[in-house]
């Protein structure tokens, strides 16, 4: 069990008149190798929660355990934690700063104390895994496209070989193909390496397509936690907190109301196609 959250609370500006509760009694287990989607409206506490997982923000009360060790305990090496739990912020391309793509990705592993040679090997591997071709290695990060920049920034975190990778809206502002490419690469990375992935997203369609488990945040609490089909079954409750089900789920509900015998829990186009074809064959 790499990460365990035990009654975690977080209060912004605690002990001042502006005190505001951002996380409320969070208990979660995050086992190895899961692909988890985290959804919630703006201000629901999802980013704050993610920042707790690698010790960037310290819980006001409660405990967070990584591999059984309390990350706020005396003697816990938070620096090491940050290389094990990699966090990719929103618009990570704004953080690219080196003279070329390759040096930028080498920065993380070098900072971990790896030799130049090892750092370069890691950078090469990370860039390959996000589909950045070698021709781009020696270009300035400012000369490549938006989608490529985003992938270079993700590679920068991957080069630290984290066991847990947290991505805060990695596809915001990308065109549909760029979005699919990044999510696809993350998915295959998870399958190949067994890395745990936490994906914060506002796209219900993307979440439905890629993740095994969804955590729904609302007003600083975990409102729902389960598989995509189960979570999107609660679509009316999701709408009440500013979210929705994937469009295809609504389509299935509508078809079902009109008398077509289909499973309304479907969350992806692929499943929906199969369901409808079957239902039309055997009405």
């Amino acid at each position: 069990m790499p990460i365990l959250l035990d009654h975690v609370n977080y209060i912004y500006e605690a002990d001042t008149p502006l005190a505001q509760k951002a996380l409320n009694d969070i208990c979660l287990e995050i086992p190895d190798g899961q692909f988890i989607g985290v959804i919630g409206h703006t201000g629901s506490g999802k980013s704050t929660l993610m920042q707790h997982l690698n010790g960037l923000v310290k819980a006001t009360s409660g405990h967070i355990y990584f591999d059984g060790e309390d990350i706020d305990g005396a003697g816990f090496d938070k620096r090491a934690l940050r290389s094990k739990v990699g966090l990719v912020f929103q618009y990570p391309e704004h953080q690219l700063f080196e003279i070329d793509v390759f040096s930028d990705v080498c920065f993380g592993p070098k900072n971990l104390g790896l030799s130049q040679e090892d750092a370069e090997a890691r950078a090469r591997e990370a860039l390959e895994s996000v589909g950045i071709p070698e021709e781009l290695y020696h270009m300035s990060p400012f000369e490549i496209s938006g989608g490529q920049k985003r992938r270079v920034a993700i590679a920068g975190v991957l080069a630290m070989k984290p066991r847990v990778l947290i991505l805060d809206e990695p596809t915001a502002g990308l065109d549909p193909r760029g979005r699919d490419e990044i999510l696809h690469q993350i998915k295959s990375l998870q399958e190949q390496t067994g890395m745990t992935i936490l994906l914060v997203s506002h796209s219900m369609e993307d979440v439905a397509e890629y993740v095994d488990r969804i955590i729904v945040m609302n007003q600083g609490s975990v409102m729902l936690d389960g598989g995509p089909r189960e979570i999107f079954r609660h679509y009316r409750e999701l709408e009440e907190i500013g979210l929705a089900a994937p469009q295809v789920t609504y389509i299935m509900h509508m078809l079902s109301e009109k008398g077509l015998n289909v499973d309304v829990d479907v969350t992806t186009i692929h499943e929906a196609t199969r369901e409808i074809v079957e239902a039309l064959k055997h009405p």
Partner: protein
Amino acid sequence: MGIIQAMHVVYEYVRRDEEGNVEGSIRAVDDVNLDIAQGDFIAILGHNGSGKSTLAKHMNAILCPTEGTVWVDGKDTRQQEAVWDIRHSAGMVFQNPDNQIIGQVVEEDVGFGPENMGVPTREIWERVEESLKAVGMYQYRKHSPNKLSGGQKQRVSIAGVLAMHPKCIVLDEPTAMLDPNGRKEVIRAVRALNDVEGITIILITHYMEEIIHADKVFVMDQGKIAMQGTPREIFSQVERLKGLRLDVPQVTLLAWELKKQGIDLPDGILTAQELVEALHL
């Protein structure tokens, strides 16, 4: 002549080295012709780097064409003295609401534009009120913008543009950073401005389902207009769009997949209702 007209517009970004010598140039917009009628709802699609934002910035004289001409409400954008008139006619809303809000209080933020134009004080307040009402944010007029949600902030940004009484609003990915509800709120507000106030809308987005009600869609690729037509005409061409790194709404994709499985369906289904009808349910 329409509210926005472009003829053979070319825009080149010039790259310079550290001494300022020209190293090369990138043609971001390449021979674009457009004629947008007053009151139309126009959508512009295109992959990252296709030139759509560069083109949008020509619509209120943030950029002027390297070659060719853009007219906004009949005025050539290269005429220096027309720039202010042009920006009053065509307002712009960008992706990140946090970069566009400057006031401490919502109503002050919305009043900034007309105040800057020299509108008399009493009229400023009238405009603030009507603009906030038009986007459904009037009850938040005394709030601090930084306590609002993303969708609310973005609607305040739109109200700020609206208070300048533009004929046209250009929105460059206004929903990219919003949650599903925020996206819905913003699109609803934008559609109402078009339907009720008759304001011309030019919407750039990567969310295909946001534009199914548009009057016309332009798809850009490599600085050129690669496709144009009604949403139905555009979304009927699923493979072509995928080739341009784009997508179609989920219902359109579902119908297309079903058709491939041998189910008799027309191309370019845009809503769940249309799918239900086409399946004769």
